[in-house]
């Protein structure tokens, strides 16, 4: 499934959260979405998912906006926040509620609970879950519909090292199955091990969008973190990054 963002823009009063953002994400690849706090990552993802209305432009999945999708959960799996579950509901019931709305059978709920390793905690109330468990539950909700595209906002937050390792494997597996994976993260070292392409934004504008290998190649052995810091500290918004080695 192709994800396209075309001239996407959003302002909050005088502040431009996202400005003329155009991206094209291909199936079978993991695209990392990085930017400083307030760079516009979450706003972009929310516009992509129809949770926030863009002031200009549009975001589509195979040509359809999220609101136009016939079966949204079977098309796009999304994780926008781990704290999106009623604390008084059990983990299984939290997923059953979502599944019921999308006519997904309860057997799929049990399947994704097993996939994220929460079978043992399925009958416990979400209020008693650790941050990492809520993160896994949010991931399970994203995978409920066996979607062709997966959009994950900071999925590694709160996960322990084993959890991060597991998440890396899961994301790679999703892409290997031909799904389009769009993932934002602050954990750049971790992200670098997972993604095929990287998108960097600053002040709501696109700084760079290219394959990781090409980016690191031009950085002559630099890490994603070093490249990111370099780009976001020296690149005037909107200008091409050029050869990273030549920069001061």
């Amino acid at each position, binding site marked *: 499934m192709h994800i396209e963002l075309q001239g996407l823009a959003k302002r909050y009063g005088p502040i431009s959260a996202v400005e003329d953002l155009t991206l094209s994400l291909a199936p079978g690849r993991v695209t990392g979405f990085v930017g400083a706090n307030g760079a516009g990552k979450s706003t972009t993802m*929310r516009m992509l*998912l*129809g*949770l*926030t*209305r863009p002031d200009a432009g549009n975001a589509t999945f195979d040509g359809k906006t*999220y*609101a136009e*999708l016939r079966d*949204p*959960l079977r098309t796009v799996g*999304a994780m*926008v*926040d781990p*704290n*999106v*579950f*009623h*604390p*008084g*509901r*059990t983990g299984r*019931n939290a997923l*059953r*509620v*979502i599944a*019921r*709305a*999308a*006519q997904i059978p309860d057997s799929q709920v049990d399947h994704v609970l097993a996939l994220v390793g929460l079978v043992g905690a399925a009958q416990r109330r979400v209020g008693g879950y650790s941050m990492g468990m809520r993160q896994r539950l949010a991931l399970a*909700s994203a995978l409920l519909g066996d979607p062709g595209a997966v959009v994950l906002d900071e999925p590694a937050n709160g996960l322990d090292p084993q959890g991060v390792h597991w998440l890396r494997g899961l994301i790679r597996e999703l892409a290997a199955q031909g799904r389009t994976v769009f993932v934002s993260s602050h954990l750049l070292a971790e992200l670098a091990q997972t993604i095929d392409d990287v998108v960097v934004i600053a002040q709501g504008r696109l700084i760079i969008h290219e394959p990781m290998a090409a980016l690191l190649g031009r950085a002559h052995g630099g890490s994603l973190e070093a490249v990111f810091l370099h780009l976001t500290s020296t690149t005037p918004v909107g200008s091409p990054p050029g050869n990273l080695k030549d920069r001061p």
Partner: protein
Amino acid sequence: MISLISAEVLKIRTTRLPGVTIVVVLAIAAALPMLYAAASGTGDLEPLNSASLTDMLAAPSRLAGGGVLLIGLLLAAGEFRHRTVFTTRLAEPRPLRVLAAKLAAMTLTGLTAGMALDLVTAGVGSAVIAHNGVAVEPLAHGFPRVALLVPLVLAAHGVIGVAVGALLRSTTAAIGVVLMWAFVVEGVVPMVFRAPEMATWLPRGAIHDLLSAQPATQVSLGTAGALIVGYAAALVAAAALLDYRREV
């Protein structure tokens, strides 16, 4: 749409508060006929008679209405408190369909709670009246009318609860506004203006007229019913308009 309504009903069933509220209301409804019988004939209260069954049926309806209203408020405003609105909107991006599903779910809940209230109150009330040697006349004294209207009135409470919750998007604010309306607007304003007849045109007065053993005094039953439907429709229209225009 049926799957969305089913999901909303599942939300109600999978948290504790709605169930506890209904059980408490039914327990109080079961106790009230006994208290009524014990108090009848004392002070200003008439001795127990055949018409008492209708009064017993109507007596807990205000409390039950408050309970169903609370469930409706929590179903709508609780989505924002617990941020479950994100998963709800990802499953169904069209907000008006979500609102319609919540209204339908609370209509069903109100009707079910009302029928349960009818059964409990009529059953216990008939037993209490018969035990006191008074003839039980369930087809007289307005009993069939009140028995029919209690579920409808509770359904209206559920609809109003959802509408207020969707309008305010805050459980605290919604409960505060409802309490202020009940105690200040309905309780104090008619006294301040020295116009007690004003209360008849407010929701609580209209409900009182509908559920009285003796039919309405100030307005006809049809007018009282139309008033309640009108208040509910106005609130639903306002909620729908704002829900459509506002972002999550």
